[in-house]
């Protein structure tokens, strides 16, 4: 078993880590996100002013590291964002027979995200014309290098190689091709890959359709554990119970490496009293007291969700202040869960203060996403599932749309948008990079108004992303959201899952206790391959009882018996089944395996015991190493014995077998 970490740079919600796992000679690619960091050095279109010294051209994107890893047999995807880089690869020859495993919901959201990205990117093409140059002029300039260093990307080790990794975006055709390879699954559905592997996705709790994966090979079971959230306010909770007792855990949750604790303090400075009422109203809290496992309450307490709701409520209060002062609010956040929660909490806040401020969601995919988030109860947290059973809409946005408080438009230039438009307003739209989509135009419109508010997510280089919009008067709220397992919960989680090996990111080495743990740690870092020792040398097989009953075992000594076995091996669903083979093997030659030497004298007496008339052949050429036994009854036969071989001359098959049996009995052979 070998693991190569291909990318860990982002390790975030938008760009999860990517790995290459080699198992029993098969290659699995675990996640293939798109790295959009290069986008920040391109000026958004239409150009305005000096564009902050950014590149004025159709942007290019980092080619996923997996492209250089050669072909893979299967891709296992844990989230919609984890598949956005796939269309770059699926056309390559090494991916011709590759299968992509991903949950139904993640596949659907992923496809929409890819299409939206292509659509937004097309705005650049319309402005500049198509990007056809193999190596555009801007790539050679000194300016480019400066900008790249501005990006502070650790990747830039080899500059020549570097610009070759910047490629044009994929097309809608590539997306189509990629989606053809997708095999969508449900949570808890066991799928078989190549007969010997069983793959199973379970909820990871981070987002709708996000999953952890269990990869069960014939000799090892592996848990692929991407960023996970124990208790979620929208997605089905992290289903850790289905991951118990797998041999290896590939811990790929990088969220705790980002400094979240600091942000919490920042948030804590602001008041939290006002949030309590809304918490109760949406009843996203639940009691998990009934769980029997004593460690569960600690891991799964509601702290995380409470904090998350508090964070979002705080954002809501900032939004509320902005609209009260007459400013509009722009929220270019790409997290579906956060958007859905924000909508519920904002509308609640506006309703309770009887303010009428329209909320717009401007995105190509909004209508479809909003329609289908209300039709996937199986993928939602327990409290939302209860809404199904009570006959209520699963999310608040259904009611908001009906009441005319929320408007969905695919584009800023969509029909009807102007008629509905009223400022101040609250707008949720892509894209978080502030280089693509309606966010660019709206930020241009509002950037000089100090009453307005821009809500961005921490982690992106805010200074760089806001560069083309300078000077700014708009208020900017940087916020962070719960994105994975807290450091403090890693150890209790591992203790519950009881693995034998844990693969941990190098960066977490200092943060996780290694004393007194019953498993061994391996640490991985980007670009390096680590090899794990085999857990089991042998395969588990199932032998049908009808085959077993037909075996003819021979006792070799007090403690050992052996039997010759002739079977067919059937492999399916990760199970090795030995079934009976009707036809016997070629009879003319057999290997006899024996412990003691073949003594002609004993053979003679054994044959006589079976009622045969026999004697040593009076052969003139007899030497010490060769000896012949002549049989005259029940049929004619001659047995020639040398040190490494015996030849039985006989025309009667039954006699043949009898001689063979006698021979094997004298030497304890089979």
């Amino acid at each position, binding site marked *: 078993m070998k693991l190569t970490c291909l990318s860990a740079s982002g390790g975030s919600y938008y760009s999860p880590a990517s790995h290459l796992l080699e198992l029993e000679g098969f290659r699995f690619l675990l996640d293939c996100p798109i790295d959009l960091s290069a986008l920040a050095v391109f000026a958004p279109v239409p150009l305005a002013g000096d564009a902050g010294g950014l590149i004025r051209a159709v942007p290019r994107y980092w080619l996923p590291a997996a492209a250089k890893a050669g072909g893979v047999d299967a891709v296992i995807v844990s989230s919609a964002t984890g598949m956005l880089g796939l269309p770059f690869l699926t056309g390559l020859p090494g991916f011709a027979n590759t299968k992509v495993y991903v949950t139904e919901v993640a596949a659907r959201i992923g496809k929409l995200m890819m299409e939206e990205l292509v659509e937004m990117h097309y705005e650049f093409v319309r402005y500049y014309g198509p990007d056809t140059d193999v190596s555009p002029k801007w790539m050679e300039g000194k300016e480019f290098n400066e900008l790249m260093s501005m990006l502070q990307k650790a990747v830039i080790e080899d500059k020549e190689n570097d610009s070759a990794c910047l490629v044009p975006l994929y097309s809608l055709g590539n997306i189509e091709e990629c989606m053809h390879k997708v095999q969508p699954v449900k949570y808890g*559905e066991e799928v078989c890959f190549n*007969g010997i592997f069983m793959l199973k996705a379970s909820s990871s709790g981070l987002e709708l359709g996000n999953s952890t994966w269990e990869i069960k090979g014939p000799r090892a079971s592996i848990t692929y554990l991407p960023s996970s959230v124990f208790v979620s306010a929208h997605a089905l909770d992290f289903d850790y119970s289905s991951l118990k007792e797998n041999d290896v855990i590939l811990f790929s949750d990088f969220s705790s490496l980002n400094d979240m604790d600091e942000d919490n303090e920042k948030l804590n400075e602001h008041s939290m009293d006002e949030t309590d009422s809304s918490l109760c109203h949406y009843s996203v809290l639940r009691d998990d007291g009934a769980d029997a496992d004593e460690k569960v309450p600690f891991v799964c307490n509601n702290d995380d969700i409470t904090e998350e709701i508090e964070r979002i409520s705080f954002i809501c209060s900032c939004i509320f202040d902005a609209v009260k002062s007459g400013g509009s609010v722009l929220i270019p956040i790409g997290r579906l869960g956060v958007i859905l929660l924000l909508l519920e909490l904002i509308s609640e806040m506006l309703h309770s203060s009887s303010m009428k401020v329209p909320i717009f969601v401007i995105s190509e995919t909004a209508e479809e996403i909003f329609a289908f988030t209300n*039709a996937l109860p199986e993928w939602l947290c327990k409290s939302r599932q209860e809404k199904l059973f009570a006959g209520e809409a699963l999310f608040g946005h259904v009611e908001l749309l009906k009441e005319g408080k929320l408007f969905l438009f695919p584009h800023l230039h969509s029909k009807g948008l102007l008629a509905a438009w009223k400022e101040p307003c609250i707008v949720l739209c892509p894209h978080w990079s502030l280089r693509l989509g309606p966010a660019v135009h709206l930020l241009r419109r509002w950037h000089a108004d100090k009453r307005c508010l821009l809500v961005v997510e921490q982690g992106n280089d805010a200074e760089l992303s806001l560069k083309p919009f300078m000077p700014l008067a708009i208020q900017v709220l940087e916020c962070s959201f719960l994105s994975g397992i807290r450091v403090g919960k890693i150890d209790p989680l591992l203790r519950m899952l009881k693995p034998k090996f844990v693969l941990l990111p190098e960066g977490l080495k200092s943060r996780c206790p290694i004393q007194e743990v019953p498993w061994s740690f391996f640490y991985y870092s980007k670009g390096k391959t680590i090899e794990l020792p085999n857990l089991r040398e*042998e395969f588990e*097989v199932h032998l049908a*009882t009808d085959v077993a009953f037909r075996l003819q075992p021979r006792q070799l000594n007090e403690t*050992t018996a052996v039997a010759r*076995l002739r079977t067919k091996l059937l492999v399916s669903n990760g199970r090795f089944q030995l079934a009976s083979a009707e036809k016997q093997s070629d009879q003319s030659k057999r*290997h006899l395996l024996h412990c003691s030497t073949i003594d002609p004298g004993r053979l003679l007496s054994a044959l006589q015991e079976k009622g045969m008339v026999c004697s040593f052949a009076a052969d003139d050429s007899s030497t010490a190493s060769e000896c012949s036994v002549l049989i005259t009854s029940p049929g004619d036969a001659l047995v020639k014995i040398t040190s490494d071989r015996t030849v039985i001359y006989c025309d009667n098959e039954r006699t043949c077998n009898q001689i063979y049996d006698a021979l094997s009995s004298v030497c304890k052979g089979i």
Partner: protein
Amino acid sequence: MAIECLVLGAGQEVGKSCVVVTIGGKRVMFDCGMHMGYHDHRHYPDFARALAAWGAPDFTTAISCVVITHFHLDHIGALPYFTEICGYHGPIYMTYPTKALAPFMLEDYRKVTMDQRGEEEQYSYEDILRCMKKVIPMDLKQTIQVDKDLVIRAYYAGHVIGAAMIYAKVGDAAMVYTGDYNMTPDRHLGAAQIDHLKLDLLITESTYAKTIRDSKHAREREFLKAVHKCVSGGGKVLIPTFALGRAQELCMLLDDYWERMDLKVPIYFSAGLTIQANVYYKMLIGWTSQKIKDSHAVHNPFDFKHVCHFERSFINNPGPCVLFATPGMISGGFSLEAFKKWAPSEKNLITLPGYCVSGTIGHKLMCGKPTRIDYKDIHIDVRCQIHQLAFSPHTDSKGIMDLTEFLSPKHVILVHGEKPQMAFLKERIESELGMPCYYPGNNESVSIPTTQNLKMSATERFITSCAVEQGKRSLHKRNLICGTGLSEVIGSDEEAAEGILLMEKHKSPKILCEDELLEVLGMEQHLVQFEPMVSRIVADVESELQRAKAADLDSDGK
């Protein structure tokens, strides 16, 4: 080891489906239905008798889990009775739509029987709610570990929204209980879908054990033509249905037709229930057919355009209309009320579902066309048109045979059908498919032997040698052991591999290659060759020659 199958209901009849299967020491109850044709003790399966036979102190210890296939009353009707009155507290599984919609069916029926017939109420509304709270919802294809040994999985059955076929497995013993299923897609649901599974037992419904139906399209057209003719003649159409399933399918059909033909005649739903049910259907669109999902990414097909607001007094209004009224089979409730009002006029039309339980008005209308119906103390003159819906959400005989052949179980048990037809189907399954088939009556049980396997380890060399042996003829060596199907058989007999089974005291048995055994046990190899007698002479001559040659060489050397 054996699988023990006890039929508590729907044995040689339709109604109160309930089968308890003991598999690998685990007892699983499939469905827990009521019989709508009876109002005495035959209403529910005979639980007490079963419990006595098991010798268990209570149902919770006797039964590992209950699995409900779909929300029809003959499959779920006795569940609140079983949990709240008989006191079963173990796990209950059903799909998300079944859990969401079952309370409606139960409450609807409870109200009908309570209000209209004054029947003694068996369980209360609160009982239904308490019962449903205990239900664990499941998704299709999801593998659910009920306990350490018992695994269950639901497959799409297509019969009504959320209907499932249930796969259950303990150790090597595996079985499928189909519930009701449909092998042809209908307007809003897909056809039943299941994997190739290795099964010891298949328990299948056999409602249409003898019938083979023609194309669905023609039958839909017939229905639309009858409805159109009636309303254009100023008549009223009464469609008695249960709130869920058939109502939605027919309404989709009519809504579509109304749109195409630009009809203005109102379509009504008698109960707020059906309208409420549509709200659920909108959230459960993922459980309808792929076709609907694909063609309605944004618009929801359960937003009916031509359905109008309805009040009870409307049944006295003049002019044409179409009314969906509950319950189906006209066994009481509002459909009976409307029937009483509308049946005496020739202009009107009553549609009947494909199947009606005996004892209901629907059943009477189906068996020849009576001109007068006496129901309890009421006399109704029947002059209206009657159209029997020829489409049923059940599979026909061909579908049952197809599914049975596809799954190739070692044994088949038929339930949910009528005795003579079941006998006919049993013959077909045994003669055409060569599988032993049974159709036990209520409270009878059937025992079925199961296959067993021994678990052991095998060395990598052995596995590789098998794979090489079997792959010799395979062009795609890479895909040698490929495929997700269970019964994937690789290679023919000639490609069998040889190995040695090594059994040592205090160690688990192990399979290895010959040469590995030599290493392990320090044995030697000795080749045994079989030759006909004739070749002995040849060999003698050869050795003679060789000796002569050697002698020559010797002499030459000298």
